[in-house]
């Protein structure tokens, strides 16, 4: 076990917690989905985000042992566990993003640290710094075509792929966990900008926001 000091970033104290989009809902509104909505936006706040850095072989062994999924070794890879709740995404040759249900990340970090021992690696908790926005519906791809510079055609962006790319004037991690569902991992400070961009760009598809 390494001598790194770790602490649980989730506090026990009764402090009201607000998602990064709370302010945006108040200020910009959140149109409810209707029968005519061809795309639905849904925020999945308070998930556990961990950044793993290190050699693929060492990390793969630990992630298999602790999470039960293999580390995506190929560039742009995204793997999920059986129920789709936990995912590991390739970000760069020595960097992966792990997203797990909220509250699990501290225990996961400690178990990974125990499994990795003295290996050369780094784990950082990015849960408070980013949030996950889901887009679902038949027009989700059209909406993305207006927003990101990456080619999102199914032949180029199959299920199980994820990239970091330019979204409007900011950057997002764009992933496709299922046929009709896309996920955007956005930085907390850019969440409002991204949300307002999506509402504006999605207006023609009758975008609805599920809360």
């Amino acid at each position, binding site marked *: 076990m390494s001598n790194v000091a770790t602490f649980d970033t989730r506090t026990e104290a009764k402090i009201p917690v607000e998602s990064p989009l709370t302010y945006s809902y108040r200020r910009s509104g959140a149109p409810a989905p209707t029968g005519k909505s061809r795309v639905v936006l849904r925020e999945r706040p308070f998930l556990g985000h961990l950044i793993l850095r290190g*050699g693929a072989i060492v990390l793969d062994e630990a992630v298999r042992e602790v999470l039960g999924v293999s580390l995506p070794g190929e*560039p742009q890879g995204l793997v999920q566990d059986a129920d789709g709740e936990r995912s590991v995404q390739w970000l760069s040759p020595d960097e992966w993003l792990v997203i797990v249900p909220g509250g699990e990340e501290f225990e996961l970090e400690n178990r990974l640290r125990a499994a990795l021992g003295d290996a050369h690696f780094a784990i950082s908790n990015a849960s408070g710094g980013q949030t996950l926005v889901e887009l679902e519906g038949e027009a989700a791809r059209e909406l993305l075509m207006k927003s990101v510079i990456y080619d999102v055609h199914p032949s180029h962006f199959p299920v199980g792929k994820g990239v970091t790319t*330019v979204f409007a004037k900011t950057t997002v991690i764009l992933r496709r966990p299922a046929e009709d569902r896309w996920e955007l991992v956005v930085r907390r400070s850019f969440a409002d900008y991204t949300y307002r961009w999506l509402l504006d760009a999605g207006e023609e598809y009758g975008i609805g926001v599920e809360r």
Partner: protein
Amino acid sequence: MFYIHCPYCGELREEEEFHPKGQAHIARPADPASCSDEEWGDYLFFRDNPRGIHHELWVHAVGCRKFFNITRHTVTYEILETYKMGEQPRFTAEYPEGRPSRDRVEPAPLREGVRA
């Protein structure tokens, strides 16, 4: 806009995701303290400005955030190749059509820790 092949992502990506970082293959003097002012000044400030093939350092700033090298033609702007850090270019001023494969320089092994 045009596409640049990122050797780490293994695919063509928009130019917007990249930043140029100047001339590639500049070796830091092994012992800076014993350099003359001229040697140190050359290392810090002076860069080649060739007409023709030029090796450049670029970074995939939005994306994998890795540095890599590009061989570019400064007259036609054509990108002849992109290759990882630690590797040697195939296209050089000496071999503008590409180095013959038989005496192709073997890429230097990547440092442990950045190996994928």
